[in-house]
């Protein structure tokens, strides 16, 4: 396994293709995500952006091509063999996908309650820790239906964090939120990328949020957390991947994206 090499890509797609019936979703898509870096997948609706995340998780299987996670090939693993792979991944679903029959505490602690023999007080401590991280510790006893859209996404982020994943996947994390609430989600994503060194894969069509995430960084100064404009080196750590007609149209950093002369990219940015 390539996990011994700390700089090896954590996610690697090699010529991945997928079609549903006659509709081609992905056509020989290849990309890599390096540890501690972020990659934003852009594209219009229905170009298979979310499909990429489902492939990473193994919820879908590609028709051809290879998917490697931490150097291990996962696209042919059985559901059972995938479970340990999924332990390294945290997924924030669109709209949160919280279990609405469970409280916030049970949602956030789900993986530890169900999947481990960790004593309940320890699970509760971890639940409070991650809820504190997203600033929602006073909501621990609520039901998901009592939360606002933004709070639900933050609880979903907390749930994805509970088992300390190495890679976080976000599916349209800010879609449907007002701009102010969206910024709080963006800040969480930046915080996790910069302070916790979590590798991040984001699927979105919200350019404003994607640009904000790429162009800002989180710093801790004398214990206080601040979001400042990113240094050029930091900005280079977040890359963009644009999909069009099931193919990769563009891959590069924010300045490169802005400088692109491709007519579709230009039209998309405007």
């Amino acid at each position, binding site marked *: 396994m390539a996990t011994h090499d700390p700089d090896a890509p954590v996610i690697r797609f090699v010529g991945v293709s997928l079609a549903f019936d006659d509709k081609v979703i992905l056509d020989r898509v290849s990309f890599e995500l390096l540890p501690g870096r972020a990659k934003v997948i852009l594209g219009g609706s229905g170009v298979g952006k979310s499909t990429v995340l*489902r492939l990473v*998780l193994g*919820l879908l299987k590609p028709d051809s091509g290879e998917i490697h996670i931490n150097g291990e090939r996962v696209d042919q693993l059985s*559901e059972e063999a995938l*479970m340990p792979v*999924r*332990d390294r*991944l945290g*997924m924030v*679903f*669109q*709209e949160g*996908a*919280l*279990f*609405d029959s469970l409280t916030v505490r049970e949602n956030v602690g*789900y*993986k530890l309650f*169900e*999947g481990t023999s960790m004593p309940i007080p320890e699970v509760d401590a971890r639940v409070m820790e991650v809820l504190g991280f997203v600033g929602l510790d006073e909501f621990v006893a609520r039901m998901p239906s009592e939360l606002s859209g933004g709070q639900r996404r933050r609880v979903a982020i907390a*749930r994805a964090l509970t088992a300390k994943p190495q890679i976080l996947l976000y599916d349209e994390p800010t879609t449907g939120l007002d701009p102010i609430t969206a910024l709080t989600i963006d800040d969480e994503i930046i915080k996790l990328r910069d302070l916790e060194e979590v590798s991040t894969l984001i699927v979105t069509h919200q350019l404003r949020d994607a640009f904000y995430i790429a162009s800002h960084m989180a710093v801790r100064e004398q214990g206080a957390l601040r979001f400042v404009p990113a240094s050029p080196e930091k900005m280079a750590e977040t890359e963009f991947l644009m999909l069009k007609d099931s193919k990769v149209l563009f891959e590069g950093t924010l300045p490169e994206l802005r400088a692109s002369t491709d007519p579709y990219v230009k039209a998309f940015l405007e």
Partner: protein
Amino acid sequence: MTFTAGVKKGVLEVQEYFRLLGQIVRGLTSRPIYFRDIIEQFDAIGIGSMTVVLLTGTFTGMVLALQSGVTLDQFGARSMVGRLVSATMVKELGPVLTALMVTGRVGSGIAAELGSMMVTEQISALRALGTDPVRKLVVPRVLAGIVMVPILTVIANGVGMVGAWIITVTQLGVSGGVFWNSVVQGLYIQDVWMGLIKPFFLGFVIVTIGCHVGLRTSGGTQGVGRATTNAVVAGSVTVLAVDFLLTKLILTLLY
């Protein structure tokens, strides 16, 4: 939709249903088993369906007594009403009507619940968090179905007989002693077996169809509505078809 596309879709549906059955068998015979969810489903499916089953059972018994009273009068055999009621209730109406009521209440509920979990990606979230949705959601419901539907059927038979007794005594003027005597005379041990074997399979069919339809839901809230309707329609028709086949089979084997 063309004819071939329709056939293809039907075959796929059946294939997926049998695949689900395979996963259920694996879920029943290996770990992890979610005991808390099993208890919850016993409560939701069993205790939750009690009221509706009590009401259907009572009214069925009552109407059965009234109708058979009229028919038996033609032969001057009004005193035999207990025989007719018990045989019909235990062998046929108890299992089938209970199953139909449970289809309406539980089958639709399961399809709607799993369907909305499907369209809001909660099922995907379960898998992403390392839980097999079949073990966590389907197996507990199936266990509750195969245990609780027979119990509910026995209860429906019981209250149906009581309902019939009330009508027989008050409306038909037959004495209670004659009625109960006739009830016992009308029942053979094979009838009791038939009355217990049927609901076991019917419970299994109702719940697995509800789960199958729910887990194949797509297309947002509209899809959930469609899934709920499909679960009730497919469930009810299958209940009647399976009841016919079981009746034939049991008559051949036991009688």
